[in-house]
């Protein structure tokens, strides 16, 4: 076994046993939220990092997944374990529908279109009261287990989704599809001229990229037991996905993971040390500006270039 495989395996084992060795539930709670953001970031990475189409509205997919689970569980009593993947499918379906008009757009136009669509979805969720409960939000039934078991179950659901997302990205990176996506990012016209079906490839990337955030959106709704439009369609979710990935390294497998691990901790510390509203996002956007100006390839890219460390 190579050294990399041993590290990955050790990390996996550690994450699996964390809920049993953690002294307080707080750390489990913290980790599961970190996993959630990592999934959204890794999902964003597929369309933003690999394909070069910066979506500024990934919160839309998260929110759609959350509402799918909330509506099905609260109103129809469907088992949440069915609704989680279903939320992902709904998000992917939405990506399919909006992909048709938006994926033809280049660069910043795509960013503007996705940003607007996520705002539009929030307004819709606020006003389609019969379906979404409007501004009052939706309350889900409490999970049937005690708090400790519930958090553990949610933790493992998030961990499984995270593992699936990372595995997908890894396989994508190794496959011809991943190569095609990178090709589109570097030069779309050239990609087309060597026979890559760019439309098809972009759709694959966009659908995959929407699916995983949709799944964790559903898990989040079940975990929070209450959702409303400003929480699940929060523009800061899209922003986190972009900044986490860019900080770690866009278009790399490990980038979103490293970026989320570091920046989510920073964000939490900022929020706990100075509790005046606005402070955490101030720190956060300052970090983002610094990355864009001075470290455009992210941590992984810098490690690769300057220190010759090979990271996937």
């Amino acid at each position, binding site marked *: 076994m190579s050294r990399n495989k041993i590290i990955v395996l050790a990390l996996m084992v550690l994450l699996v046993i964390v809920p049993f060795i953690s002294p307080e539930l707080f750390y489990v709670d913290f980790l599961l939220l970190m996993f959630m953001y990592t999934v959204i970031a890794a999902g964003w990475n597929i369309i933003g990092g690999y394909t*070069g189409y*910066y979506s*500024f509205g990934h919160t839309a997919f998260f929110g759609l997944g959350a509402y799918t689970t909330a509506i099905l569980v609260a109103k129809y009593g469907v088992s949440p374990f069915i609704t989680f993947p279903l939320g992902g499918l709904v998000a992917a379906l939405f990506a399919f529908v909006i992909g*048709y*008009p*938006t994926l*033809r*757009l*280049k*660069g*910043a*136009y795509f*960013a*503007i*279109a996705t*940003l*607007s*669509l996520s*705002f*539009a979805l929030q*307004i*819709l969720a*606020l*006003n389609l009261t019969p379906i979404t409960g409007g501004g009052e939000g939706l309350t889900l039934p409490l999970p049937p287990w005690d708090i400790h078991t519930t958090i553990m179950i949610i933790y493992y659901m998030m961990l499984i989704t995270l593992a699936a997302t990372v595995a997908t990205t890894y396989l994508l990176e190794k496959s011809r599809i991943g190569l095609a996506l990178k090709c589109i990012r570097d030069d779309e016209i050239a990609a087309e001229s060597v026979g890559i079906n760019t439309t098809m490839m972009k759709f694959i990337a966009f659908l995959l990229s929407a699916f995983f955030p949709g799944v964790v959106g559903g898990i989040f709704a079940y975990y929070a037991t209450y959702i409303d439009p400003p929480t699940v369609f929060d*523009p800061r979710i899209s*922003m986190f996905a*972009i*900044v986490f990935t*860019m900080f770690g390294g866009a278009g790399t497998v490990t980038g979103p993971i490293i970026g989320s691990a570091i920046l989510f901790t920073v964000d939490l510390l900022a929020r706990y040390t100075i509790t*005046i*509203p*606005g*402070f955490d*996002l*101030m720190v*956060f*956007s*300052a970090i*983002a*500006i610094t990355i*864009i*100006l001075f470290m*455009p390839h992210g941590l992984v890219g810098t490690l690769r270039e300057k220190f010759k460390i090979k990271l996937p």
Partner: protein
Amino acid sequence: MIGDIATLTQAIVTGILLGGIYSLMSSGLSLIFGVMDIPNASQAVFAVLAAYITYWTYTLVGIDPFIGMVFSAIILFAIGIVMYKYMVSRVSGLMAFTLLYMVAMFLENTMIFVWTNLYRGIRVPYLTGSINIYGIYVPSDRLAGFLISVIGFGLLTYFLKYTYTGKAIRATMQNPRAASLMGINVNSIYLFSFGLGIALSGFAGAILGIIYPFNPTVADEWIGVMFAIVVFGGLGSLMGTFIASMIIGIVSSLVGTYASLVWSPLIAFAILVITLWVRPSGLMGRKV
């Protein structure tokens, strides 16, 4: 029946007033977008900043808002120049958009941090009440805002059409390479247009601050409307921006009157998405 016509006229007049103000608000974005091909995501946040500057110079020092407006536009011009020189000129295209989005987030949250989320409004004592023209009410603060906006927009059009710098800006808009071959210093045109674009949103922000109550997060709503107008009007066309502002102003006013106010913010987004879908170059823009 008469009542219906009065309601309709009232809605259209309100829409025209709104559209006029929108046109000045979006002109800065349109200019920067047209010249540099960068959709400046921080435009609306700077408008809010201008509203705050006007508000504070009025409440603390007692400077008249219409003078404070000029003052805040000058400050924004300086900020724009510095920002272009040290940040925006280092990146391009999509990265520039991301950078400016993050600058917007930074400023918005700094304003929340410093001035909280409380709604504030600039109350001009001599602009209260409204004028009644044949049964149609025209609020005087909106009318003043409309007139300033339209005059400002007219001056901008004149400047771009007939002055040397204006012509240089338009030449750069059409083809930066050819412009630089004709002896235009394209870099200083970029610098100047960026400062001017942000200063324009400063005027509009102060006017909006007089008409509506504001807090730092209203920037999210304004930027949506601005993008919709500029994309719908067409990239690099100020005339298109003006027409699009009027259409979006009137349509949102009509929807607000006849359907419900909650749907009028959706109009801008719907128009934006449909434009990008059907005709990405907009009403009068060049091909994208």
